[in-house]
């Protein structure tokens, strides 16, 4: 038997196409518990590689022979070793190139919709981390919202589409992942926007993203307009694109709402969050399609791989939008908050430009789930 090498892109296709896969995860138990490759029809076995140094015989009965088996570890080395041991036992096995590091970095661009005059809206789904970024393309121009740090992915995608990146936005100062926004802007000459209330400590230049700001993309003037919606952070801003789409940043997700505690105290911002979700968003058209900056669980993916739902549906189904009692709402978003994302304080420092870790450190800081939401 020979050992096969799979790319993160191949695994991403399995997730989106709803295929079966058996994952043998050979990382530490707590690493696996904290975060793993999620798929609708994936099955798992977690045995740390160091328990397999003397051989894999003991786990063979637990591995299926009628399904593909993918061995996964943190970086790659241990999964190669274990996959080779499986092959020696006559089992088909593959390993994930680059391990969980490459899974965390992989972006799958999925088209959300066609816009007027050949315009397009893309969602970049970062399956391994639950981050969602956006690109509006129209007649040779592009605007990007909430870009993650893999700047080449966005720059090359725009290039392939023959579009020049003109505007780059961050809906807020992110705490769960490192933004690529200002680097893309620097490389392409685009304008970089950030809400000034989130930017009091940043050490770079930016253009203020304020309520009512409006930019047009391309000759057909696809509308991108800003709506001040604080609550996750004090500066959090949403976007309405082409009167059809509502980019909610980390304020509203498909099955949860933004947590108000990652840049300060939950008590301080819970009122803003309430006001945004229960007043500002209520004034918007229910037909708007909500496009958030994150998803939490794989079930939030639609069949085509996008994460998108009508605002009207969320008003009906999202628990966080249906807590009538203010006091209960306050308790929901301040008590029982999930653990804070890994390294969130240092990630904020990076996004403020205060520290510049190397690539390996950035990968390390972003390991793990995003945990920006409260349910």
């Amino acid at each position, binding site marked *: 038997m020979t050992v096969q090498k799979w790319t993160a892109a191949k695994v991403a296709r399995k997730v989106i196409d709803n295929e079966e896969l058996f994952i043998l995860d050979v990382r*530490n*138990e*707590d*690493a696996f518990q904290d975060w793993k490759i999620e798929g609708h029809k994936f099955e798992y076995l977690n045995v*740390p*590689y*160091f*328990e397999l*140094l003397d051989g894999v015989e003991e786990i063979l009965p637990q591995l299926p022979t009628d399904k593909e088996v993918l061995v996964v*570890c*943190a*970086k790659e*080395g*241990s999964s190669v*070793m274990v996959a080779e041991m499986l092959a020696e036992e006559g089992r088909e096995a593959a390993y994930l190139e680059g391990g969980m590091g490459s899974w965390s970095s992989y972006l799958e661009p999925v088209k959300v919709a066609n816009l007027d005059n050949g315009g397009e809206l893309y969602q970049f789904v970062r399956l391994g981390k639950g981050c969602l970024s956006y690109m509006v393309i129209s007649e040779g121009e592009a605007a990007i919202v909430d870009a993650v740090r893999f700047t080449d992915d966005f720059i090359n995608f725009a290039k392939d589409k023959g579009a020049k990146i003109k505007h780059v936005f961050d809906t807020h100062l992110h705490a769960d992942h490192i933004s690529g926004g200002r680097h893309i802007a620097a490389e392409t000459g685009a304008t970089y926007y950030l809400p000034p209330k989130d930017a009091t400590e940043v050490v770079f230049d930016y253009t203020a993203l304020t309520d009512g700001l409006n930019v047009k993309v391309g000759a057909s003037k696809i509308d991108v307009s800003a709506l001040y919606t604080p609550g996750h952070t004090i500066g959090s801003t949403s976007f309405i694109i082409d009167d059809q789409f509502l980019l909610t940043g980390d304020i509203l997700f498909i099955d949860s709402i933004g947590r108000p505690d990652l840049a300060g105290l939950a008590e301080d911002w819970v009122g803003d969050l309430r006001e945004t979700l229960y007043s500002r968003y209520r004034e918007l058209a229910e037909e708007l399609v909500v496009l958030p900056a994150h998803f939490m669980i794989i079930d939030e993916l639609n069949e085509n791989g996008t994460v998108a739902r009508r605002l009207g549906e969320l008003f009906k189904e999202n628990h966080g939008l249906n807590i009538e009692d203010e006091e209960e709402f306050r308790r929901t978003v301040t008590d029982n908050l999930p653990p804070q994302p890994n390294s969130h304080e240092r990630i904020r420092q990076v996004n403020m430009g205060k520290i510049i870790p190397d690539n390996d450190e950035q990968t*390390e800081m972003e390991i793990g789930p995003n945990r920006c939401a409260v349910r």
Partner: protein
Amino acid sequence: MIKADHHLDAKGLACPMPVVKTKKAINDLEEGVILEVQATDKGSKADLTAWASSVGHQYLGTVEEGDVLYHYIRKGSDEPKVEKAFERIISFEELESRDGLILDVREGAEYAFGHIGGAKSIPLGELESRMKELDKDEEIYVVCRTGNRSDLAAQLLADNGFTKVYNVLPGMNGWNGKITKEF
């Protein structure tokens, strides 16, 4: 610098090699000795910790110097249940109100990664030759990890004319108070 009996250079090696090499190296060692593993793979800390506890070695701790991680592991942590021979024993609670010297007879590396503040370190193996550092008129409370080595140490001291010697039980793995680290 922390004292180790053996050194393993796993610098520049990626996972799984630091654990593979450590496993191989520790096989050739005697129970109770300290192995220092030098590695540059950041993941080696979590992996060696989990591996050591899964196979019954005692992971002591890690010191970071520049890019290099120095891990310390003591071979075999499951000490056999020996009948303790030294009769004068004392608990941590009783110890609190007493004056005297706490003598820590674990290996230097174990001591370095966490001991009771003010405790003096003389590993069991060095006790015979360093006995003169101790005062026969002082109360001496001997502590180790589980109470076995301190039992042997207390007997050795008593045989050499120390009269106010106590074995502290259960030992450092039952200590919930503050610990001091010293590298």
